[in-house]
């Protein structure tokens, strides 16, 4: 267990669940409760190489770096699994294994494995902060029979953690419950719940008391374990009236769900660059699926609306030496073609139309970078954008300048998550910090490494005001240095040999 990443749990309530005999309840208490806050942490454990519960701290610019197969993608994949589950509204089951973002065909592929050692639980969670503090909510998934189920849900705040545990052996769609005695449970409930959630419970109690004065006062916490985004209900029951009243009092994943829906994913594999892009309605659906399927439509929409976002995009393209103009045209009713300027910058007075070239006829650097540049220009507020390998196919100079674009986006408030192997991009970020153009607080450096058992761990670095990352194991820059030293070695050896020979 990664102690650093676990809350210091001093009072932990572990709740044994039972199966509700008649789960057909309908919330009859006004169901308008919604939490809000900012997602600050992503939590994963028991997933692929992430054996221990591991926390990724999110900053406006979060860098994921490490060797190949070190687990960089694995920290984000569970959230992409949740995303494709949400996007496949009609899908059955807790998680959709096959979708636009990630591809699995067996639940077992999700779980940590080392020889005969296999994780029993896979945890996916997050931490979010609002005016009342930071709270961590985590789903634990398990395979029961041939199905993936939510085995328990943990809600942790400060030193307290409440775990609602699904009873072993129950079917996926069974509802897990726990009897809660009002007095006995009020303290631990309040230690993990927000004030308004506790108020919600109290309102419900009053509601129950008014409705059923003959009841025994027994209430049940209900965990609806059939979906990943579980809600917690209170159900009131008595011998006479079996669970007639219910109320959602806590939606642990209320903040994560919209965060995941709005997450724009630009995968490292941008596929074959086609001349025509299928037009799709954009707006809120721009974050649906992978973004290279939408970026042309977004550009077409911007051109049509004469959006200022085009200006931001063109400024960034120019900064990276990828051209200074972008255009689109509707080829037919379903296809859009994207054009970019032929030269990095028009200087000879030639007209726009002469200067434009289809994206299919440009180098891969431009066609690979454009989707993530559009994604960053599109992002609204703190909208998360996850970019895999932004440096793909880019010349080092463009990689270096890409740091300025990422920093711009982070300063605009976008939550930028970047997976990279580019030392020069990292140096570009350090340079901006040292120049005072980027607050080091906005940047999170995360180095992924695996131990001898293959388990991934993350080492975080706090950048100083002069751009130093201190004792961080990141070796992107030192690999270049080592390569140069190896060259020096070879050169010295050869020279010595020649001198000796002489």
């Amino acid at each position, binding site marked *: 267990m990664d102690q650093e990443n676990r809350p210091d749990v001093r009072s932990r309530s572990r709740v044994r669940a039972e199966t509700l005999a008649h789960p057909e309840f309908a919330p009859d208490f006004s169901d308008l409760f919604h939490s809000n806050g900012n997602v600050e942490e992503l939590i994963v454990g028991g997933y692929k190489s992430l054996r221990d519960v591991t926390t990724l701290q999110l900053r406006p610019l979060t860098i994921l770096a490490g060797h190949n197969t070190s687990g960089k993608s694995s920290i984000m994949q569970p959230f992409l699994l949740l995303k494709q589950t949400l996007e496949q509204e009609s899908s059955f089951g807790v998680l959709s294994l096959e979708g636009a973002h990630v591809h699995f065909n067996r639940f077992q592929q999700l779980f940590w494995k080392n020889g005969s050692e296999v994780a029993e639980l896979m945890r996916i969670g997050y931490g979010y902060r609002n005016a009342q503090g930071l709270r961590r909510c985590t789903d634990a998934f398990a395979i029961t029979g041939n199905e993936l189920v939510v085995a328990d849900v943990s809600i942790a705040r400060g030193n307290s953690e409440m775990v609602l545990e699904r009873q072993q052996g129950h079917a996926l769609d069974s509802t897990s419950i726990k009897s809660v005695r009002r007095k006995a449970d009020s303290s631990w409930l309040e230690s993990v719940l927000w004030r308004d959630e506790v108020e919600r419970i109290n309102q419900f109690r009053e509601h129950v008391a008014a409705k059923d004065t003959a009841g025994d006062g027994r209430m049940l916490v209900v965990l609806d374990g059939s979906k990943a985004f579980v809600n917690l209900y209170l159900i009131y029951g008595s011998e006479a009236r079996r669970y007639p009243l219910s109320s959602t009092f806590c939606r642990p994943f209320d903040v994560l769900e919209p965060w995941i829906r709005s997450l724009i994913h630009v995968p490292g594999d941008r596929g074959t660059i086609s001349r025509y892009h299928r037009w799709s309605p954009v707006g809120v659906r721009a974050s649906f699926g992978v973004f290279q399927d939408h970026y042309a439509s977004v550009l077409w929409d911007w051109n049509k609306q004469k959006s200022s976002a085009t200006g931001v995009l063109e400024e960034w393209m120019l900064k990276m030496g990828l051209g200074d103009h972008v255009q689109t045209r509707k080829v037919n009713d379903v296809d859009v073609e994207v054009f970019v300027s032929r030269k990095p910058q028009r200087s000879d007075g030639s007209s726009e139309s002469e200067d434009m070239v289809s994206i299919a006829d440009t180098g891969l650097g431009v066609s690979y970078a454009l989707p993530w540049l559009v994604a960053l220009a599109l992002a609204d507020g703190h909208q998360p954008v996850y970019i895999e390998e932004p440096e793909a196919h880019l010349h080092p100079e463009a990689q270096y300048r890409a740091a300025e674009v990422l920093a711009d986006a982070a300063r605009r408030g976008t939550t930028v998550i970047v997976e990279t192997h580019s030392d020069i991009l990292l*140096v570009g970020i350090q340079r901006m910090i040292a120049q005072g153009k980027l607050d080091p607080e906005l940047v999170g450096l995360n180095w992924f490494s695996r131990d001898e058992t293959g388990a991934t761990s993350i080492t975080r670095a706090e950048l100083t005001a002069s751009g*130093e990352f*201190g*004792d961080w194991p990141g070796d992107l820059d030192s690999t270049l240095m080592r390569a140069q030293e190896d060259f*020096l070695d070879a*050169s*010295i050896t050869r020279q*010595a040999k020649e001198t000796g020979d002489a």
Partner: protein
Amino acid sequence: MPDENIRSLVVDTDVLICSVRNDEAPERRRRSKDLKDAMFRRRVKWVECDALEKQLKKKVADLLTPNQEKMFVSWEAVMRSRGLYSLIKGEVDSDLRARIRQGHGEREHDIHLVEAALASGRCVCSGDNSACLPLCAVASEVPELQTICWLCLDDKRLSPANALECKLSDPQLERRKLSLGHPFNLEVAGRGRGDSL
């Protein structure tokens, strides 16, 4: 004070750029390279003062080809990124300077090495013995100098890279205190006295 390894080192400009210069003897280049590599691996802080930094910039610009400069800067950037670079901004100690000059002459550069060493971990590495031998000669009159451990790139008995593996109490490092004279340097200079302390 716990007996630890050298944690910081003032390195003379010539030693730093030696590893990337094609016109250096292969053995010297290797020693310089090994030292820089050991400083990185063992997290030994590279200490500079304003004057040494200015001199370094000038020598890099004057003596290195663009390709050599790129290689040098690569090491510098790696050290800085990890917080292994320290720029000393100390007040000038006029009294100390006067006392050193009295016996040592107007060797401004050597005084910068001494000042940076006194303000950090009291360890210096220079290319040859031309700086430390005259300082040894005045060490009895300048007590501050007696605490400085002076490494030399040309020292065949203990390379600076190997010195970083030693504890500060190691006799090999103790012998390199300015107060004790520099037999290893005499040997380097071909005077044949050897390491007989």
